[in-house]
């Protein structure tokens, strides 16, 4: 059996042991997660494995096969240059399939005045980019991929992993943020170009500080600026679709989600540019009581 190298990573309430056949993959992670808390005791929730697709492919046209404690049978391997993406996908997979301590919503989240703004939608909606931008403009970044809804209190638990910027968001954020917070540019991934961005130090330091959800947006990029109300049935259905563990949580998930839908105001938001979206969000935020 070939040797594995590993690093333990703590993000919010979850800890991952990312094990890789390539030392270089571990050192990239070590560097990018350098300002996250160190896991001293090696006790983790999940193991992610990054291995060559076939043993002899460790060096020849190497490709990374993603697996771990929880895995999907048909996950396609990635080229070795994209090992960072593979690690992030591996961690996402563990959360999506294995995490039960919160209701997971496929949503980004930011916080201001102790209250959380959540944004959810299909990929391309801009939810990840918007959270990254707001995180540099006076909001606390809480997560760009999963919003963790506490099952008993209804609060949002931060999960601020590296932000995964895609395509046009990459140059936009490079204008806002110093270069030393970026990971390598990954070109030609299944999702286009990807570059990882470290959240601000303060967002990482406060990743155990919860916030009460105050507004949920369904952003949609590329349409004339508009706000629309949504019916509770539509919201409920779309959130069950946006949750990876709603069914797995049974009655607990049902209670948490119905409570969220009852209590949290929701808007569908169309926008053409980041600036426009931020102006709309500022206005909505000011109108909240």
């Amino acid at each position, binding site marked *: 059996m070939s040797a594995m190298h590993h690093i333990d990573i703590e993000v919010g309430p979850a800890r991952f042991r990312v094990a890789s056949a390539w030392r270089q993959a571990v050192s990239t992670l070590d560097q990018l997660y350098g300002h996250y808390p160190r896991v001293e005791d090696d006790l983790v929730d999940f193991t992610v494995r990054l291995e060559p697709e076939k043993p002899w492919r460790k060096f020849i046209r190497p490709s990374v096969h993603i697996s771990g404690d929880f895995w999907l049978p048909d996950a396609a391997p990635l080229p070795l240059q994209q090992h960072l993406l593979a690690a992030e996908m591996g961690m996402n997979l563990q959360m999506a399939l294995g995490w039960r301590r919160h209701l997971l919503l496929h949503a980004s989240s930011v916080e201001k005045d102790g209250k959380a703004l959540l944004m959810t939608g299909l990929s391309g909606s801009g939810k990840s980019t918007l959270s990254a931008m707001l995180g540099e403009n006076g909001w606390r970044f809480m997560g760009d991929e999963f919003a963790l809804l506490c099952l008993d209190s209804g609060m949002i638990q931060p999960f601020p992993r590296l932000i995964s910027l895609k395509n046009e968001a990459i140059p936009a954020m490079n204008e806002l943020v110093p270069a030393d917070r970026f990971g390598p540019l990954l070109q030609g991934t299944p999702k286009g170009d990807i570059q990882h961005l470290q959240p601000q130090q303060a967002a990482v330091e406060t990743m155990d500080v919860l916030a009460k959800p105050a507004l949920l947006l369904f952003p949609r990029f590329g349409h004339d600026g508009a706000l629309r109300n949504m*019916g509770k049935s539509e919201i*409920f259905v779309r959130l069950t679709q946006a949750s990876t563990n709603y069914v797995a949580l049974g009655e607990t998930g049902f209670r948490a989600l119905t409570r969220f839908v009852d209590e949290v105001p929701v808007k569908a938001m169309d926008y053409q540019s980041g600036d426009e979206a931020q102006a709309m969000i500022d206005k909505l935020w000011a109108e909240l009581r």
Partner: protein
Amino acid sequence: MHEKYRLASSDALIHHDLDSMSLIFDRRSGITHMIADPVTAIIEVMGDAAASVAAIAEMLSSHFDVEQEVDVAEIVLARLEELRDLGLVQREGDG
């Protein structure tokens, strides 16, 4: 038309109203069902008792404004059979 139908025990089901629709979470299966009228109304009038299609249709007509030309019993039967497929309603004397 004479068979009686009965709703699953009230311990098993959690009802939650949204806007135009409502939710039923079935504890026995872990499945969330989303229902709209007339199913919501049918479930409401059924309560805990076993009732025939005709009886349910009559209760519906007396509780709600139903248009004259509509065959309420036919609608009730069709909806009850759907609910039976979902395991939310039992027909007396069989599964």
